[in-house]
């Protein structure tokens, strides 16, 4: 696939976001643009008010739930694995394994292939399609957990620790801090897989997205708004709330809760203690260090652009692997006004 074409002449970051020049579109733009390809529904990737958006059906519905009429002027649904042409650039969305509907954007132009992976993880998740590695010339990866200390524990083990804690403290409410899109639903699905069938109480902001997961066939069992709970419903129960809310007003409704936080950051227990987390669960929707390295190998990319997080250490690791690594923020900076 070697080509004389330099990849950073046709895909590079700009003030509005990552821009594909020949296709005249942006990927996950940070500001309003005419034409956007959106990898997944998280707020730092899917912004409202773009004119036209290409995304998976699930991502489009998530954007509609989150942004309502402001979501976009026009949506174009991409079927995973099916190529779409935008001004001569071939765009294919391929599952990224991150959250419901998440996709990598595979871009092809003049015989060259660049994969924008967005956020991704490699392990199985009952709420979304498994990541599919795609061979490419350039792979753009996140580095959220770009240090070798970050290795996520197996899901079943962490859920096992959670359920053991529920048994050990049968009178205390387990108050779980989890992001409202993705982590919340995955956590409930994992609980159900482990046989937990009691009601799960949710912060009101999470209900609409959980219902949407239901529409896409992901059954989360008995979920209820925490606002409808009487005080003794919550003793010994499970409440899920966004990380900020978990420590605020809600925390005062339940006496002496076990503060649980499900995140890859919880691998470092010093972090957990600093945040006042009593039960840290290492459960992440992002690739850990070994997954990032494995994925770079799987793609066979000769060049890797790194973004989102600890770029320095991952770039160093690319050098050790004999791969040409660059910080995405530095791509296209030499000689061109962007």
């Amino acid at each position, binding site marked *: 696939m070697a080509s004389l074409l330099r990849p950073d002449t046709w895909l590079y970051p700009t003030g509005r976001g990552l821009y594909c020049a020949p296709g005249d579109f942006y990927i996950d733009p940070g500001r309003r643009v005419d034409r956007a390809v959106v990898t997944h529904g998280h707020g730092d990737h899917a912004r409202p008010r773009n004119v036209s958006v290409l995304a998976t059906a699930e991502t489009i519905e998530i954007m509609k739930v989150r942004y309502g009429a402001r979501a976009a002027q026009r949506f174009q649904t991409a079927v995973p694995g099916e190529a779409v042409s935008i001004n001569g650039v071939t765009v294919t969305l391929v599952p990224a394994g991150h959250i419901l509907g998440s996709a990598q954007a595979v871009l092809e132009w003049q015989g060259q292939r660049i994969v924008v992976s967005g956020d991704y993880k490699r392990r199985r998740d009952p709420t979304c399609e498994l990541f599919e590695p795609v061979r490419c010339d350039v792979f753009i990866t996140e580095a959220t957990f770009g240090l070798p200390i970050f290795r996520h524990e197996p899901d079943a083990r962490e859920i096992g*620790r959670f359920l053991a804690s529920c048994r050990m403290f049968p009178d205390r409410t387990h108050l779980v801090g989890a992001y409202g899109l993705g982590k919340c639903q995955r956590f409930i699905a994992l609980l159900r897989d482990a046989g937990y069938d009691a009601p799960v109480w949710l912060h009101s902001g999470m209900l609409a997205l959980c219902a949407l997961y239901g529409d896409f066939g992901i059954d989360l069992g008995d979920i209820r708004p925490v606002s409808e709970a009487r005080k003794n419903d919550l003793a010994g129960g499970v409440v899920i709330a966004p990380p900020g809310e978990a420590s605020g007003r809600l925390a005062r409704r339940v006496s002496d809760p076990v503060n649980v936080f499900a995140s890859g950051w919880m691998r470092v*227990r010093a972090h957990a203690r600093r945040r006042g987390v009593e039960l840290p669960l290492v459960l992440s929707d992002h690739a850990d260090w070994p997954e990032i390295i494995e994925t770079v190998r799987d793609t066979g990319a000769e060049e890797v652009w790194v973004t989102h997080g600890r770029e320095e250490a991952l770039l160093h690791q690319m050098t050790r692997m004999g791969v040409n690594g660059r910080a995405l923020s530095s791509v296209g900076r030499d000689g061109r006004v962007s």
Partner: protein
Amino acid sequence: MQRFADLADRLHCAPHSRAQIALISDYLAATTDPHRGWAIGLLAGTLVLPVTSRTVASDILDGYEDARLAEWSKDYVGDVFETAALLWPEPSVSKGPPPLDDAVCAMLDVRTAADLGALVAGWMGHLDAPGRWLLLRIAAGLAPVTVSVSVVKVAIAEFARVGVDDIEEIWHGLNPPYLDLFAWLDGHGSRPEVQSESMFRPFMPAATLTGESAERRRFDNAEFAAEWQWDGVRVQISSTGGVTRVFSRRGDDLSTALPELCGGAWGDAVLDGELVSINGPPGEVNRRLGRKKSSARLCREVPVEVRVFDILFRDGRDLRRLALSDRRELLEDFMRDCGDVPATLSPLLDYDHSDDLQRLRGEARRAGVRGLLLKRRAGPYLHSASAGEWYAWPRAPLCTRLAALYVQRGDSTAVGSSLTFTLGAARAPGAGDGALVPVGKMDIASDESGFDKIEEWIGENTQERFGPVRSLAPGLAFLVEFDAVIASARRKSGIVLRAPRLRQILWGESPDNIARLDQLTTLIDG
């Protein structure tokens, strides 16, 4: 061992002692002997390994496949032990770690640091990350996790549904893995007998009175005896069969550091008192306790004696259930009759009512004592804090304005979190901004009003980070109460404040108002 690692992991993040107690008693119920006894020994710090190695963790970092990745990881995590545990490869196929009993026995048999390192390396591949962290800490001779010994005892009591006093009474006569203790608690044996030898008995604690609470309370000489609170170190002298041992507040054996006490003709008794230096300033007494053994020269340089104020046993008879007034009579008899010992009887202070106490307290600083002790005359000698028995009423604190130089996040296992500030005094008038020198450290707990504002301010005014410590821009100062100024040769300022406490947060205090070092130095005790 994995089960103990899971326990330590949960204890590490437990927000309060109630949760810790529940976790430990749950572990005791689910774990067999001798594993649980070793676990108790590790948690309470009563199990001491013959060989430990401080460098086990840093050796792992040094040996990591890439030095820069190891360095970045350590910078991110902060703690060397946790970093090493996290970097160690995950077990692929593992037969699991050895049972705790096997692991502890192997470590007890080790004779060299190299052998210990080899043992640890062999087990690392069978533990998860929190388990590896635990193992590295144990091998370094560190506490596996910070838990107070009293929490451990309460947990044992709750697990076995006995009173904590029953555990307390025999605790210091027992050793890991506590087989006799658990046999008794499980109903398979009798209560261990530990009366015979000279053994540590838990001290009776005193509740500290604050200025206002003391003034509200009315003390009456008929009900409460008053004594000076000597400025030294609380000790217990336990003498029987010609053998005398001296114990610290925590039950550590200080005998070898205090040969003149152990050589005294005490007879058969257990006494409670305060060890003080006879001539020097109060801090001097610590020079005698800082090392395992005291040389003859050090004994001459820093002569010490005990101000005795209570008697717990006499000729094998337990006096602790007697009223203080009865014990006092027996103590006075005993002190009159006993041979040549470096001890004096701590006198009772004469007073009629609370106003007299107020006056005595005012004299405490000049008298070189820490304040007053008030003890209910009718009360027994108890080893758990009991309301209304003994009170310590410290002398009025000194107060000054000091600048915040550095801050570090404190231990957050207690209820809420805390910040530890390094306090600075000005070196000399007009010597400029950089001329602040550290004179002590002060904790501020998260329930203090203004804590959130301080946290926010720190976020915006951190200058540099050195591991967990941040240096701060000028602008934050405190009105600080403290008990005394102590001379300290090993500190740059030459002094350190004792027991500093926040009175008030000062925002935007002028640098001219910060206390000067030369002013503080004039307040040195003794």
